[in-house]
């Protein structure tokens, strides 16, 4: 082993910034080269809009102070929002829907059909729910015509071969015309009423629209945890390689004292309050950690990489690899919710368009999808899918990805098994308990090294990283505090950061063709999804729609609990098994993405 390399604080800061921030952005950000010029221009436009929305979110307070408000008092309470918010959201919906529709035109038929149905259901609801079609007259029929033309275009182009740019621009024109005309119809119709239909309708749709953004919120949660993991793990590895044994030992000791204090507090409280439940929870955490370790070793252990000892990149690579599962898992876990939302909008549209048609069947389906049974079934399906993905990836010798998928399956599977009222529920773990186990593990590593007189910089660094991961387990949403202070929105800080980080780092895979879709289409789809998510968050933050924010934040929190926990475990496993795994910057193959609904 080589001796410590000299380093300064500047080395650390620049290295951290480069590896944790700059490189992921550089590798993951959208590139215009390789795409058709017109699509590249569209990407620039969407990027500008995205940046403007982020700025609006950051400036929500002064924006509200400077805005006129409109109020709706028709539903018992009072809804008050800035007057520009409804038209802003409608415009952004039209833009994002045009992007996803154009992007899905040449994709897998299931994705294509789903996107078409979803978009038509949402936009159709906007068109149908106007206060008075008779009053609106020609304008409303214009709206209907444009929507029909958009649908017809998508259907006809199922077999056509038009460029992605043309598809987008045509759909952009048609959908914006549809929505703008519908909005005008609403405004004209509500002039003869004291109800604000535009607010009421949008609030109704927002209930469903928010649910459709939940996979993005899930992915955002994982992204946010990933930054925390990458920061701490890279820092630990940096000191492990470059720090003196004394310095690393002192730092590890300080953190050990802090974490041991917390652990001691948890043990004392656990044993005094409900000792049986606490012990079973700890056992559950240990079991999950052990099974996860076994899965990691089985998968990643089959690929032994001769590294040059530069492990600093491995921590960041692991985060990048794990992040690829965020959106697919998000879609999987939220699938019942997504189907319910789409059916809900179809029901709303039918109720207006054909009031004589019974929507009872749809209601029954929605109710069935809302049950705990359906949620459990979905989660089991996700676990099964992850295990299958692990097997397939292992066969293709994508060991690191296979290991990540397996550990994800173990963590999510354990939550499924330990939820509900069965006897296993008493074994339910908490992230705090994983943190406590991490402290114990660090202690055991230290004791073993001291007993064997093998305490050195490498061991000290390993203990340090394990302790840092333990701390992160207790507060995985570590970025919540600084981001929350910046935005004065701590409840949604993680959500906003996760979405933005996912946008600037998640575009790497869209620069290659897949079996089903040209890169231009994948780019449009990525842009549409990303814009949709941030548009809804902008609406919710600026309009103080706390229910929508709470819904999305809960999904983000779920991501932190599931795949965030899994990511931290994987990072610890990777640290404990030197020369095992490590993606070393290798990009995933296009074939993996075929299974990902987002092609991303």
């Amino acid at each position: 082993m080589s001796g410590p390399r000299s380093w300064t604080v500047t080395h650390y800061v620049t290295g951290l910034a480069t590896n944790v921030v700059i490189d992921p952005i550089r590798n993951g950000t959208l590139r215009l080269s390789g795409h058709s010029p017109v699509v590249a221009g569209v990407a620039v436009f969407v990027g500008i809009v995205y940046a403007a929305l982020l700025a609006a979110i950051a400036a929500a307070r002064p924006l509200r102070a400077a805005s006129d408000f409109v109020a709706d008092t028709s539903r018992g309470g009072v809804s008050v929002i800035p007057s520009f918010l409804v038209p802003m959201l409608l415009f952004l919906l039209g833009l994002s829907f045009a992007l996803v529709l154009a992007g899905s035109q040449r994709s897998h038929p299931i994705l294509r059909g789903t996107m078409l149905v979803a978009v038509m259901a949402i936009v159709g609801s906007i068109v149908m729910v106007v206060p008075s079609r008779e009053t609106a007259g020609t304008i409303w029929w214009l709206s209907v015509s444009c929507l029909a033309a958009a649908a017809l275009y998508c259907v006809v182009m199922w077999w056509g071969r038009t460029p992605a740019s043309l598809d987008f621009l045509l759909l952009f024109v048609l959908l914006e015309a549809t929505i703008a005309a519908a909005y005008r119809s609403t405004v004209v119709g509500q002039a003869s009423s004291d109800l604000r239909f535009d607010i009421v309708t949008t609030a109704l749709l927002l209930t469903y629209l928010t649910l459709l953004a939940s996979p993005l919120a899930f992915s955002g949660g994982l992204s946010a945890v990933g930054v925390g993991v990458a920061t701490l793990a890279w820092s630990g590895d940096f000191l492990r390689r470059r720090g003196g044994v004394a310095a690393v030992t002192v730092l590890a000791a300080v953190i050990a004292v802090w974490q041991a204090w917390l652990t001691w507090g948890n043990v004392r409280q656990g044993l005094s309050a409900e000792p049986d439940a606490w012990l079973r929870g700890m056992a559950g955490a240990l079991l999950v950690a052990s099974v996860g370790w076994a899965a990691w070793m089985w998968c990643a252990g089959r690929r032994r990489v001769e590294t040059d000892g530069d492990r600093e990149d491995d921590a960041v690579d692991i985060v990048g690899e794990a992040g690829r599962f965020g959106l697919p898992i998000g879609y999987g876990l939220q699938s019942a919710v997504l189907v319910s939302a789409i059916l809900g909008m179809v029901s709303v549209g039918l109720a207006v368009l054909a009031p004589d048609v019974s929507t009872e069947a749809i209601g029954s389906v929605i109710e069935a999808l809302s049950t705990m049974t359906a949620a459990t079934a979905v989660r089991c399906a996700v676990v099964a899918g992850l295990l299958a993905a692990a097997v397939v990836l292992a066969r293709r010798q994508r060991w690191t990805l296979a290991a990540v998928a397996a550990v994800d399956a173990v963590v999510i599977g354990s939550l499924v098994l330990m939820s509900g009222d069965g006897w296993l529920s008493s074994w339910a773990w908490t992230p705090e308990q994983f943190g406590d186990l991490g402290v114990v593990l660090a202690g055991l590593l230290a004791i073993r090294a001291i007993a064997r007189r093998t305490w050195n910089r490498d061991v000290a660094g390993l203990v340090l990283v394990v302790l840092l991961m333990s701390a992160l387990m207790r507060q995985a949403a570590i970025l919540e505090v600084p981001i929350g202070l910046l935005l004065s929105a701590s409840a949604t800080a993680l959500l906003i950061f996760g979405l933005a980080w996912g946008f600037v780092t998640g575009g790497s895979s869209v620069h290659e063709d897949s079996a089903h879709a040209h890169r231009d289409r994948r780019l449009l789809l990525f842009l549409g999804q990303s814009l949709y998510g941030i548009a809804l968050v902008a609406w919710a933050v600026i309009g103080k729609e706390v229910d929508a924010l709470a819904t999305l934040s809960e999904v983000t929190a779920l991501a932190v609990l599931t795949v965030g926990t899994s990511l931290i475990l994987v990072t610890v496993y990777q640290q404990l098994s030197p020369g095992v795994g490590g993606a070393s910057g290798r990009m995933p193959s296009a074939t993996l993405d075929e299974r990902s609904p987002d092609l991303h």
Partner: protein
Amino acid sequence: MTSRRTAGGVALGLGASLAVAAVAIGTFAWATPRAEAPVGFRAYLETTEAPLSIAVTPPELATAGPITATSALAGFLKGLAGIPNRAIAASVAAEADALGGSESVQILRSMSASVNDDGTTGSLFSVRLVSDTGLQKAAEMSSSGLAFWYSPPVTELPADVTPGSTWSGSGSVNGIADYESVGRIETSGTPDCIVAATTMQLIIEGSDPIVYDVRTTWCKGQGSTTSTDVTSGRVVSVVPAPGPQDLPDAQPAATSAYPDPLALPFLSPSVLLPAQVIGDMLVTVNSATEDIVAVPLTASPSEDAAAGDEPATTLPIGWMQHPGGAVLGVVGDGQALFVTTTERSVISFDRAGGLRWSAGTPDVSAGAPVVAGDVVVMATLDGSVIAFDRATGERMWTRTMSDAVVSDPVVAGGYVIIADIAGRVTAFDTDGETAWRAEVGPVTRPISSLPDGSVLVGDDAGSVHRLAVDGALLWSGNLAGSVEGPARVTGGVIVLPTTSGLQGLALDTGVDRWIEEAWAGAQAWSHSSGVAVTQGDKIAQVSSDGLVSSQTSLVEPDGEPVTEVQVVGFSGQASLLTSRGALLPWPGIE
């Protein structure tokens, strides 16, 4: 060549996207409703810039776009009871439709103070129609119970208000008499003011005509500033005074509550905005029209002469104020009222409805403000906490929470307690200093102050926490659902309305004592005899062991079932105020 082609393509894509976006944004901007500027005679009506007064024309009606008479009167109709009021509403609606209906008629509601030449006072409630033909009085009601409605409405201002303009009209009054009127516009000695002089004869068969000579001064942007009515020799001055109305000195009620049901005309009190007692006035928010309405509790119920199957007794309106926008919260300190509105304002009224002060805020309030010592504290949706001097409205201090606030602040232990959606609970003293902070789960539900100064906070995770006066966590518990309303305490048990039922928690330990699932969504009220809960038309008394009695089928005075009711206390006892504007005596549910 290739790079030029690429750059050209990029420019084309960007340009095309920008072009479509610009057209779409322009379309949305064109479609967005905008306020219309007043034109012609409308300039003499009140505008948003005019100071609030007792005779208030709802600003948004004066400057907003057209509204249908029927829909604008929908709220008006809601709170009405009794033949005369329904007949008035129907008549006004019919006249508005005849004038052009949905696209061209506006409704003005106003209240004035009338002072007779013998010094007696009263209040006058008018309903006017604004259309392209001018300003016409459709109906008026006095606090004494007299009401007139005109068909067609009597012209007060013609479309052309050039001095020298004249007009005439005739029609029926109350369907039983006739009227004839003539009018002319005269100059006023005051710039930007005109005088409308009208003479109306009320012709009742078998009686001599009653002649009303009315001279009304209208000033630009202020509405009618004075109106003098000489009726058969008696001079009555109608003054839309901006200051306190001359109400009699407050007298305590001889008995606790009215023994019989009483109707409050024009009223549909909002249960979401609990009624306040300010001196001898019961003040509530008329949910249909967003007016603040005060009913003097010491007034004797008057007999409704036209009662058939209608309520036998009514309470007159003392005063009505329209603060602008929709009311978000209201609180009283016994002598004054503090109101927050969607206009980003905090407004204080006195017992007589006079405007004490108003102040602007950067964002809309989360709900009702609270009174603590000499300050009134409110929290806004953007997380600002602002304190105003109770007497003058001067802004005393501003603090910022970590995130948005959607729960009403409460006062507990001498501190103002506020919880934001990030779950941070902060206690401020009256000087704005932070006394303590605590962290729980996200809070979007009501928080409650308990009698011992502790605070009960329910978070969105389904947990409830009791925090001591110093912020220390006393206990935490799990709820079956989410907190639905403020908690009350009786016999050492916290009565907490939740979405899953009415839950009883031990005050000391938070342990579940009982749950009444049938009362999900109920509201709990403290009154002189303990704690009661209401749900729809049901009311029940609650003890530490749960419900002890219940009474179902509360009915309005006209026999219709009650839909919503709140408990109001005055003169030491409790009454029930329904959402249809009836004051019911306390039922026998001890």
